[in-house]
């Protein structure tokens, strides 16, 4: 299996196609969403981590192909370490879904950073969870963090975005940036990494260890806002 040797876009198992007629689905992330995702991966460099991405609930999404991007406004870090067990994932999905409804959000995406640096493909867990999310949100995407590009300076976006087409998850050309405001996202993420804010990031695992740990990460949200 090719691990992206020499190809500029390293995506070992996807079909690398020119999406010339493919204008509809684009995905954008707010600084807050991008930041927390990276902080989660930075907190547990020796583990796989995963989490959910949420978008604002819109009454009707235009399906006429005029490319209204899905905007991920926030991210909820879920687990670190062993990702392939069902019960706590179910609990998290249910609880976060309820929280979403309260806040007019919807679970719209899933991210994962694998344990090994050179592992940037979605695995069975990722595909299963993303498929589950797609049941509720048809344009769900699956995002894999490219660990090999992860640096303190964040000088390039390190996400590989997969979309569901013809029963397969296919990766999207990542030359465009996926952030609403890349300069801001880069600046703020770099600052928070430098100040080791990831030590205070709470994921759902931390929450289960101690219910007082808040997986909405209000403190980090404040820091992000502060630096904007």
């Amino acid at each position: 299996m090719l691990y992206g040797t020499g190809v500029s876009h390293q995506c070992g198992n996807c079909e690398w196609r020119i999406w010339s007629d493919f204008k509809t689905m684009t995905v954008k992330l707010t600084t807050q969403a991008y930041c927390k995702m990276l902080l989660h991966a930075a907190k547990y460099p020796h583990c796989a981590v995963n989490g959910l991405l949420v978008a604002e609930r819109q009454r009707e999404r235009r399906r006429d192909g005029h490319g209204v991007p899905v905007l991920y406004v926030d991210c909820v870090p879920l687990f670190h370490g062993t990702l392939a067990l069902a019960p706590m994932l179910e609990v998290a999905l249910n609880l976060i879904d309820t929280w979403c409804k309260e806040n007019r959000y919807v679970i719209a995406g899933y991210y994962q950073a694998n344990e090994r640096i050179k592992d940037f493909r979605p695995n069975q867990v990722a595909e299963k969870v993303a498929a589950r999310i797609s049941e509720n949100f048809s344009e769900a995407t699956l995002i894999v963090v490219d660990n090999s590009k992860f640096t303190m300076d964040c000088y390039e976006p390190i996400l590989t975005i997969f979309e569901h087409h013809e029963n397969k998850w296919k990766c999207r050309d990542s030359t465009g940036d996926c952030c609403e405001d890349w300069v801001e996202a880069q600046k703020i993420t770099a600052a928070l990494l430098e100040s080791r804010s990831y030590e205070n990031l709470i994921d759902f695992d931390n929450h289960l260890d101690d219910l007082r740990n808040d997986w909405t990460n209000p403190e980090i949200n404040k820091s992000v806002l502060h630096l904007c």
Partner: protein
Amino acid sequence: MTKIKMASVSELYDVTWEEMRDKLRKWREENYRNSEQIVDVGEELINEHASKLGDDIWIIYEQVMIAALDCSRDDLALSCLQELKRQFPDSHRVKRLVGMRLEALERYEDANKLYDSILQDDPTNTAARKRKIAILKAQGKSTEAIRELNEYLEQFVGDLEAWHELSELYINEHDYAKAAFCLEELMMTNPHNHLYCEQYAEVKYTQGGLENLELSRKYFAQALKLNNRNMRALFGLYMSASHIAASPKVSAKVKKDNVKYAAWAATQINRAYQLAGRGTKEAKYSVKAVEEMLESMQIAMS
């Protein structure tokens, strides 16, 4: 980017060198992998207080060296290694550390050669064997890692850490039946460990099917008995009981019993959230979210 001189750990946190040394010991004994903190505390301890540490210094060098590898601080790793090599020139234990540094540099062939030479000298050296398995894992060779670990366990049947590692490898490969077997070994030798019970229950739940769900519920309950604050066990009990009650294949009695278990678990979960939420404004939503989640699941189940 110029580095601003950081305040020392002792200044920042107002701790004495003894407290720093004790923290390092705690992290060592409980096998924490908080490498950045270990490097911060350990480096300062070594640089400023080496003379006071006595013989403790050697084990601290080892701990800091390994943490330094995690943080890409090869400079620190090398200096710790040099001190250890000087003090223990023919030690296999130090040789293993040399190997770990090679691994960190991704020089796996050189590392393997080193471990093989240790094993030639001492075929019972478990540390070297485990590092070889770790290399397989790092290279993504899960099948080989699993095979080697199984062979290892045939010889060293009592190695709990190895059984646990094997269970994780199996879980990652989605071989839940074999993962369950490993956890059964762990539960047998550690019947009071609530974490093994709870993990076993999670594996059974993931395997699916009515029989496994009932087993998972029993082990979640057992984990709770051993530690009534294990939230995963509590949630797990709620989920498994709810799924059993919702299954069309169960008798009316089984359904009734499981509805009771789920209801009990739901009350406990709510209570736990109320307790946790006391005093924090943000946690109120969380109590509400849990209540709603439990309610909506009850509806789905009835």
